[in-house]
């Protein structure tokens, strides 16, 4: 289960059974799991910021099973919000009463889960791209919504994600207004969206974004659309909470 790049071979997402030792390599991050006793393992992770995370894992069985999978990018540098703010590097222009579908890249983090009795317990998480894991505010400072922020490139297809750094999501744009508009960003509660993986690639549920009139206001109505795929669905790392839905304004 490895993926060869031009410079270094990285491990893939997936389920790993550990009998004695396991070493996994990701961009800027190394994970080591070692048996240190009967039914006891040690877990250690080094990352690009020289952080060392160590944990002792007692197990009931002789083996240890873990799952490495992409997760929603909500944990680094700290869990502060459930919203994602994707700003397109090139705005998309939609003329009146038209629709378009684009694929965009969205950052991810990587979760490590302990598999035990068919339960997937979150053990650790990390990001391979801390430099691009930042916050942004949608709206005015006194009333805006704090989001995780990312500048997003338009991708060609679901296969176009950069391994371990981002996932691709489909954005279905529709303009029901009487005039054309540019769309430069999309804000959505990413905790409503599932992440899926195959080898080292990741995808996220689709976003439906409709520009429409709500009474007298022109709004950008954003909702999630689960996708049907044979890719493996990532477990949920964070505790799910109900979040308030916000309406985006039209640019």
């Amino acid at each position, binding site marked *: 289960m490895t993926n060869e790049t031009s410079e270094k071979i990285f491990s893939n997402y997936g389920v790993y059974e550990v009998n004695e030792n396991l070493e996994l390599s990701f961009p800027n991050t190394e994970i080591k799991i070692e048996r240190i006793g009967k039914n006891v393992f040690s877990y250690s992770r080094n990352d690009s910021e020289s952080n060392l995370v160590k944990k002792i894992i007692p197990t009931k069985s002789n083996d240890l099973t873990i799952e490495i999978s992409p997760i929603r990018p909500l944990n680094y540098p700290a869990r502060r919000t459930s919203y994602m703010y994707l700003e397109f590097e090139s705005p998309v222009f939609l003329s009146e009463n038209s629709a378009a579908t684009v694929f965009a890249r969205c950052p991810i983090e990587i979760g490590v889960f302990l598999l035990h009795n068919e339960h997937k317990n979150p053990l650790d998480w990390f990001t391979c791209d801390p430099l691009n894991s930042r*916050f942004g505010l949608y709206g005015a*400072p006194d009333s805006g919504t704090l989001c995780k*922020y990312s500048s997003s490139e338009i991708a060609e297809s679901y296969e176009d994600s950069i391994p371990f750094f981002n996932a691709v999501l489909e954005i279905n744009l529709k303009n029901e207004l009487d005039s054309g508009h540019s769309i430069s960003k999309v804000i959505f509660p990413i905790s409503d969206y599932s992440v899926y993986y195959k080898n080292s690639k990741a995808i996220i549920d689709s976003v439906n974004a409709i520009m429409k009139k709500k009474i007298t206001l022109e709004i950008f109505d954003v909702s999630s659309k689960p996708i049907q795929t044979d890719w493996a669905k990532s477990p949920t790392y964070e505790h799910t909470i109900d979040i308030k839905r916000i309406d985006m304004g039209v640019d």
Partner: protein
Amino acid sequence: MVLDFLQSLSEIELVGGLTLLSLLIGGIIMVVGITLARTVRLLFTKYYAPKLSQDTAKNFGKLIYFGIIIISFLVFTSSTGVDLSGLIVAGGIFGIVIGFATQSVVSNLISGVFLMLEKPAKQGDSIELPSLNISGTLLYIGTFSVKIRQFDGTIIRVPNESIFTTNIRSLTSTQVRRSECIVGIAYKEDIDAAITVIRKEIRKTMSYVLMVPKPEFRIKELADSSVNIEILVWHPREDWVEVSPKLLQVVKKALDDNGIEIPFPQRVIWEAKD
């Protein structure tokens, strides 16, 4: 037999028409009243308090408890047939004396009521009282005072009157906060280049600084020895400690790494020729 016993109690007069029987009945009324007050407060705390803010719930709980006890006391006094008119007259005079002596207590009580109605801040908010030089986390708005846990870990009690009449700066009412610092660069340095390197260093090393709104740079002053640049960055409200105390350090590192001079005050003295 019981009736005979009660009859005998009713015949024993203590003072001013107060018999032992009426005192016994009054005692039972007070015990029932206190038990009822505790039960109602317990039920309120269990079923209704979770729907209210903690301060409001606590104060409503007190109001219910003491309200029932006062009503029980009034029932007790009326059932015993004690003539309270003398007590009321004496109480009135006593009340005036007490009123003068306890102005601040009453003032704190009234201020507390208005603070609970106005709710300028709620329990758990970080607040600053600039005129009192107090800042910290609001723990509790009580009947007479407010308790604040200062950022050094100590707890300070502030009378409600002081809180009510001072400015309150809420540090957590919005999701984001802004931190600022000022740095001076030498006159010979390129201002745009300095801003660029500072911007890059903040982007690289300060993960809590928001990308939107972007860090802002203002030329604050053409000072005696330096061009002063003000740097303003936004960050999540919880993460002030991750940004504000480190901002100057990051800025200095950016300027040092790129050989941009941060000047110290200098005076050039020209000696006049004869």
